[in-house]
């Protein structure tokens, strides 16, 4: 029956991309369209004393220059979609985030004025002539320093720059008692540095108000058009939702940064009516660096205690999380419910406490970036356990086997309840690490490492991770502070000729939904894949949707499609039964036809479809048509896991690190399209390795982002990376109809600590017993670690 699921079907969407016919937001040109360009603050913290637009307004082509004071008071700032309360129950600090600042700028890149002109070049020229008088103030960029006494204040109503403090797990005194009784404690102070998502397509938005229909259209490079519409209409502009259409056309990568509702989207939408013309804004890359929400940025201290056998007995983590200057859409959830909840990892640790302080700083907002909180949790755990193995002179793989949670399938055996508020769905952790060791040739490698004597230090690093994906059960996230449900929506519309249009609320910006979802539909309905079309990204054609992030598209969106198909087939069976003069209970559906069991009497899907729309000979009382939707709210998160191994060579003289091999064995549950899953893993690995070896923002003490361009920020390039060696095991998810867990973030979550651990291993084996090399591990940093 399965013709497509599990096969590497080539992607349907490729044709338009390889022929240059993809349609990204900046490719769209509307009649009478004007171009917008922002005047952005060059200072991290300053009072805007005056803005003079006289000279700029007279520049050629200029239509209008908007400043903060032009925006009506009724238009609220950009909202936050998740509320985390202080430990004492107080509501988190939620300072306003205006579309354009009025009095004070709070990070380099804060929007001060918006210039609209006939061409982009003219808007840029005029923006140069807008004269802003700033009174420069002190700035703070580090989340830990921001909470210290005397630090510059980002918002008047957030004393000590604290947005909230938060704690999860067992009581601290219980953890401390277990730690005190431990035979060995490994402690590490470290940073999980800030990185920039850097989708290669810069953000872009076009607002278009159509007077004929009194309707706005926003084209925007987003991962979730409906969510943008909801946030923008209900919380920012106060315009009725049915009068706004949001289209997320082809989108050139997101990695989290295009989830959030940004000020620019609301501004072009509102201004298109004010100015009476469509307005396009597309970010420069430098502007993307300054305004796309960044990722990570934790400063942490963590301790892991072990008994004399090497069993983990306690974990205590303290983290300062940087939120930037304003709260981005999901920012509060990232260092808390997407981070603290993952501190169990794959281990049976009986006592765990996570303590987080989230701080405002004079920097760009920080929010979800591929993995979002889970990479930070994995980094903390996996650095500690590998370091502990070195300190205790134990094998890092053995130490993990000793501590893994025993296998459970979530059906015969219950899900595993953690100390940090989750119940894992299904897991079988030994095989991923065993397979990875096999692929490495572990024993041979250790021999080679011991024999190495050419001035190069070989090292191996492990990371065995778990993630919470398939985001998320609405009631659960609601209880944790989400201001939205996280279900997904699908509509399966069978056309009279038996062709099928599927509308999904998930959004593809590289994930290949047009192929993977079509494979599911074709298989379940027993029709050809060419007879299926997947439609997404338009709030006027797709009923509703929550979009794509948190490795949710297949687990949540795919499940919604399955449920819609079930409804179609159930109704189809009634029509078929009528045509076959049989009872629906006596029919079976396979390979595109209903057959009366035990006979050769059958009717095809195409005939039933036609009958549904030409209901001449039709069951009494049944509505015509064959078109169903489903809202799928998952019962739980899904929990993919895996084992990643890095092998590096460190040059003793220069500190240069060469990543020689990278092995990843992931378990993402059932796989619909292996080729696409492999591709997701590859991309995630490159980003995780990028964080370990190349990437990281550098803010100076005044709050300047001094590496805010591709000349200065080191993106991983083709010649920085090896070909990846990957494999997988399959532990199905027990609670969704496809048994899938999600593959979007796995590569990025597991890989970073493996690379750093490999360098630490190389250094220890070379006689340099250093506990940490800060990321990114540049030659200078590695050399300094060896020579201090």
């Amino acid at each position, binding site marked *: 029956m399965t013709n497509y699921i599990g096969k*590497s079907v*080539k*992607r349907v*969407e*490729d*044709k*338009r*991309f*390889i*022929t*240059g*016919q*993809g*349609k*990204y937001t*900046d*490719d769209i*040109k509307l009649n009478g369209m004007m171009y917008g360009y922002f005047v952005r603050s060059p200072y991290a913290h300053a009072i805007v004393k005056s803005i003079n637009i006289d000279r700029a307004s007279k520049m050629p082509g200029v239509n209008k220059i908007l400043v903060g004071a032009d925006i009506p008071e009724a238009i609220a700032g950009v909202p936050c979609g998740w509320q985390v309360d202080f430990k004492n129950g107080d509501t988190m600090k939620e300072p306003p985030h205006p579309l354009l600042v009025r009095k004070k700028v709070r990070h380099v890149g804060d929007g001060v004025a918006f210039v609209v002109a006939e061409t982009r*070049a003219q808007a840029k020229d005029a923006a140069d002539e807008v004269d802003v008088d700033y009174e420069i103030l002190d700035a703070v960029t580090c989340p830990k320093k921001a909470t210290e006494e005397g630090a510059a204040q980002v918002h008047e109503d957030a004393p000590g720059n604290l947005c909230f403090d938060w704690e999860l797990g067992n009581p601290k005194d219980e953890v401390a008692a277990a730690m005190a009784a431990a035979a060995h404690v490994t402690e590490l102070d470290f940073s999980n540095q800030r990185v920039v*998502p*850097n*989708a*290669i*397509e*810069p953000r872009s938005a076009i607002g278009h108000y159509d007077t004929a229909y009194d309707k706005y259209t926003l084209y925007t490079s987003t991962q979730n058009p409906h969510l943008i519409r909801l946030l923008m209409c209900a919380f920012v502009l106060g315009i009725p939702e049915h009068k706004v259409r949001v289209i997320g056309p*082809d*989108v*050139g*990568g997101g*990695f989290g940064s295009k989830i959030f509702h940004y000020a620019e989207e609301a501004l072009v939408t509102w201004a298109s009516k004010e100015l009476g013309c469509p307005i396009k804004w597309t970010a*420069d*890359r*430098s502007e993307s660096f300054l305004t796309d929400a960044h990722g990570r940025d934790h400063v942490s201290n963590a301790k892991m205690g072990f008994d004399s056998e090497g069993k983990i007995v306690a974990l205590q983590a303290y983290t300062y999380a940087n939120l930037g200057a304003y709260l981005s859409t999901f920012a509060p959830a990232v260092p808390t419910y997407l981070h603290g909840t993952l501190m169990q990892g794959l281990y049976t640790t009986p006592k765990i406490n996570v303590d987080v302080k989230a701080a405002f700083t004079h920097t760009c907002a920080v929010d979800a970036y591929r993995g979002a909180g889970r990479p930070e949790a994995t980094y903390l755990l996996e650095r500690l356990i590998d370091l502990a193995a070195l300190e205790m002179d134990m094998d890092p793989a053995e130490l993990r086997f000793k501590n893994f949670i025993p296998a459970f399938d979530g059906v015969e055996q219950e899900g595993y309840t953690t100390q940090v508020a989750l119940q894992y769905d299904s897991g079988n952790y030994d095989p991923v690490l065993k397979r990875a060791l096999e692929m490495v040739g572990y024993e041979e490698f250790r021999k080679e490492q011991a024999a190495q004597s050419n001035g190069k230090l070989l090292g191996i690093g492990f990371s065995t991770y778990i993630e919470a994906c398939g985001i998320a059960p609405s009631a659960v996230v609601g209880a944790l502070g989400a201001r939205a449900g996280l279900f997904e929506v699908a509509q399966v519309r069978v056309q009279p000729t038996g062709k099928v249009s599927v509308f999904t609320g998930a959004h593809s*910006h*590289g*994930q*290949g939904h047009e192929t993977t979802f079509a494979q599911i539909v074709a298989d379940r309905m027993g029709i050809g894949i060419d007879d299926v079309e997947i439609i997404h990204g338009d709030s006027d054609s797709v009923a509703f949707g929550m979009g794509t992030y948190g490795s949710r598209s297949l687990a949540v969106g795919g499940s919604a499609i399955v449920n819609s198909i079930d409804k179609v087939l159930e109704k189809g069976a009634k029509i078929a039964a009528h045509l076959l003069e049989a009872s629906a209970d006596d029919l079976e559906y396979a390979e595109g036809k209903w057959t009366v069991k035990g006979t050769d009497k059958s009717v095809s899907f195409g005939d039933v479809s036609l009958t549904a729309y030409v209901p001449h000979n039709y069951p009494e009382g049944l509505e015509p048509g064959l078109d169903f939707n489903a809202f799928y709210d998952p019962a739980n998160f899904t929990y993919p896991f895996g084992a990643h191994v890095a092998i590096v060579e460190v040059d003793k003289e220069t500190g240069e690190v060469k990543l020689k091999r990278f092995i990843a064995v992931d378990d993402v549950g059932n796989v619909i399209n292996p*080729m*696409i899953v*492999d*591709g997701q893993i*590859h*991309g*995630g*690995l*490159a*980003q995780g390795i990028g964080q370990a070896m190349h990437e990281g923002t550098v803010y100076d003490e005044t709050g300047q982002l001094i590496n805010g*361009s*591709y*000349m200065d920020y080191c*993106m*991983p*390039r*083709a*010649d920085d*990376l090896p*070909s*990846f060696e990957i494999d997988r095991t399959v532990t199905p998810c027990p609670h969704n109809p496809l048994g899938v867990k999600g593959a979007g973030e796995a*590569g990025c979550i597991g890989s970073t600590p493996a690379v750093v651990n490999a360098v630490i291993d190389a250094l220890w084996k070379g006689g340099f017993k250093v506990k940490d090399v800060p990321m990114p591990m540049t030659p200078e940093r590695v050399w300094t670690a060896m020579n201090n």
Partner: protein
Amino acid sequence: MGNMITVTVNGKEHSGGVEGRTLLVDYLREHLGLTGTHIGCDTSSCGACTIHMDGKAVKSCTVLAVQADGSEVTTVEGLANNGSLHPIQEGFKEEHGLQCGFCTPGMMMTATDLLKNNPNPTEDEIRHALEGNFCRCTGYHNIVKSIQYAAKKMQSPA
């Protein structure tokens, strides 16, 4: 629009006026509507705008439109021949060398230039040739395979 230029793009001659500062990439996208060539940065680093000018791969954000006067330009829209895909396009599809597709046109233009000069490159040579083209989706793994696919295909008799 003081500068008249004539450029042959994908075999078709275009004449028109451009500002002296107009970049070739903006000329292609805005004047000619050839939006397959993308802009990913402002520092000539990412390679999303790579095209062929007089047979050589160049970053079209680093060339002024007036410099292209009298030149032969090929963009991604001109890669396929009478509807049949170029081997590099086939390679990217067969080996899943693209995800979001944004870097893809530039990648393919760089790759075809590489294969012209080095029809049978090693993996290291391919990776080296791609250092001026960023991809954030694929980790480059399948891009390398796509180029190897094209190399093989272009060498085997049709």
